[in-house]
C-alpha cells in the first residue's frame, strides 16, 4: 500500500523537486513533502516523522540525518540509511545515481523498492542532463578561447581566419594535444606578454 507511505524529499532546486515528486506520484504515493531549506534538517525531519527520506548524495546536509540513526528517546523511531535490508545492490545503485535513502526501522525492502526505483530513474536522468550541460558549457568555452587565439594569430601573422585555425590545428597535431588546449596556452601566453 504505497499510498500510506510518507516521504520527505530534500531538494533545494525547485524544478528537480517537482520532477521527483511527479515521479513518486506516478507510482501511487500521495504523502510527499519537500524540504528546500536544509537549515535544522534533522529537526524538520523529526517533526514530520516520515517513513522514508530521499536526499541528494551531493547535499552536505545529509550528515545532519546521521544523528537520527541514534534513537534519542524511546518514543522516537530510529532512522537507518537504507543499506541494512539491501539484498540486490539497490542501495549501491541509488548512491551511484546520486540519491541516498533513509528509512525508519522495520520498513520492508519490498515496499521501498518501487520508491527507490522511481527515484533512481529520476536521478539518473538528472545525471545525464548535468553531464550534457557540462559538456555544452565546456564546448562553448572552448569555442570562445579558440576564437580569441585565432584573432591573436590573425593579427600577429597577418593571415586570414582559416589560415589561423590551420596553424592552431597543425600545432595541436604536432604536440598531440587538443586544439582548445593549444589555443588556451596561446591566450595565456599573450595575456602574460601584453
Amino acid at each position, binding site marked *: 500500500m504505497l499510498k500510506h507511505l510518507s516521504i520527505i524529499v530534500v531538494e533545494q532546486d525547485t524544478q528537480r523537486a517537482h520532477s521527483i515528486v511527479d515521479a513518486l506520484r506516478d507510482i501511487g504515493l500521495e504523502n510527499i513533502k519537500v524540504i528546500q531549506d536544509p537549515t535544522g534538517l534533522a529537526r524538520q525531519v523529526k517533526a514530520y516523522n516520515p517513513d522514508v527520506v530521499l536526499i541528494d548524495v551531493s547535499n552536505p546536509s545529509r550528515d545532519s540525518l546521521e544523528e537520527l*540513526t*541514534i534513537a534519542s528517546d524511546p518514543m522516537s523511531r530510529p532512522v537507518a540509511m537504507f543499506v541494512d535490508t539491501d539484498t540486490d545492490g539497490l542501495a549501491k545503485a541509488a548512491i551511484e545515481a546520486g540519491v541516498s535513502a533513509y528509512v525508519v526501522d522495520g520498513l520492508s525492502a519490498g515496499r521501498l523498492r518501487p520508491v527507490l526505483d522511481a527515484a533512481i530513474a529520476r536521478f539518473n536522468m538528472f545525471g545525464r542532463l548535468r553531464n550534457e550541460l557540462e559538456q555544452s558549457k565546456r564546448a562553448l568555452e572552448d569555442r570562445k578561447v579558440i576564437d580569441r587565439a585565432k584573432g591573436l594569430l590573425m593579427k600577429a601573422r597577418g593571415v586570414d581566419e582559416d589560415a589561423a585555425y590551420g596553424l592552431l590545428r597543425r600545432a595541436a597535431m604536432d604536440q598531440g594535444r587538443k586544439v582548445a588546449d593549444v589555443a588556451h596556452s596561446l591566450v595565456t601566453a599573450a595575456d602574460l606578454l601584453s
Partner: protein
Amino acid sequence: MTQLSVGYVPLLDAAPLIIAQELGFAAEEGLDLDLRAAPSWSSVRDMLNFGAVDAAHMLSPVPIAASLGLGGHAVPMSAVSVLSANGTVIGVTNALAEKMRGAGYTFDFNDAAVAGRALIAASATPLRIGVPFPFSMHSELLIYWLNALGLPAPQNVDIKTVPPSLMGKAMRMGEIDAFCVGEPWGSLAVEQGLGTLLLAGASIWSFSPEKVLAMRSDWAEVNPALRNQLIRAVVRAGRWLSEPASLTVASEILARPSYLNVPADILDRGLTGQFVISPQGERRSQSSFVIFHGGATQYPWTSQAEWIALQLARRTGLDREQSQSAASSVFRGDLFRDALAGSGMDVPLEARKVEGGFAAPQDVDSGFGRLSLLPNQFFDRRIFNPNTSE
C-alpha cells in the same frame, strides 16, 4: 604506477593525502592517488563501503562507531594510520561572545576550564552546539569538556549535526549558539564576521587522534603491498608538513580551487596555530593546534580507539567491556609497524599507552629506543589507563 582512489573531505587536515600526491611522496612509493573530494562524511563512508574508493580521510570515531554497530550499516574498517592529532576549534556567536565579555571573560584562547565556565554561565539553556558529524572527535571533546565542568552532556545540551560549510548560516539563522569545527571553517566564520573563536580542541585534550587513514578491513588484508605503500606515503607527507619551512608551500597547494578553494592566508592560521579570533581582529595562538608528525603522532594506538569506544558506549548505553573489546582491533598499530619496517623511522612497540597525564614529552618503548611522545594531557588532569579502565 598503481592508481589508488582515496576519498577526503576538503579540510586542512586532509593535507597529508594532498601533499603525498602533489609533492611526490605517493609517486616515490609507485602510487598515483586519485583524490576524490566528498561533500559530507556520510558520503566518504559510503564511498569506502561500496568500494568507490580504496582508502579514505576519516573522522577517527567513525570506524569505531561502525565496530560497535552504531550509525547504520558500515562494513568493518581499519584505521591504519592517524593522519593528524588535534585541529578543531570551538567558536561562539558574537552575541554570546559579547555576553561572556560583559561577565569579565577575556578570550585567552587557552584555559579550557575558564572558557567552559564562562560559556556555561552566559548561555541560555540548553546550549546549542553544531558539530560536523555525530561520530567525531568534535562531539567527544565537547561532551568530555562540558561534563567535566558539571554540565551533563549530551543530555542537557543540544548537540546538532551541521555541515561545516553551513555552520555560519546556522549561526545567522539562530539555530546554534556555538560550534566545534575543523579549519578552515572556524577562521572563515571569523572572517565573515559571524563568530568569535573560544578555544582550540587541543586545550581540552592536548593530543587527540582527529583523522585517520581508513580502509575496508578486507581490502587492507588482501592488499598488503598497496596498504604499506600508502601508509609510508602519508607518513612522509606528514613529516614534511611538520617542518615549519614547508607551511607556506603547503597552504598554497591546499588553497587551490581543486582542493580547499580557500585563500592561503586563511589556511596559514590553522597550520601555524596563529589565529585571528574575532571580527575585531584579536590575535591568539595555540602551538599544538594541529599535529601531523613527531612523537609517534601517526601511530594508531589501540588505547585511543578504546577511549573513543568507551565514550560512545557511555552515551549510547552500550556495554562498556564489549565496546572496548570490539574497538580494540580497529586501530591497527601492527599494520603501521609493518609498513615502516626498514624505513628507518622509529615506531612504538606497544599497542596501548596511558592517555593523558603528562605535560612534557615522555619516552616510550620503540624499535630504535629513541622515541618520545608529545605532551598528552586532558584539561581536567584525568588519565585513561586502558588496562585498568573501570
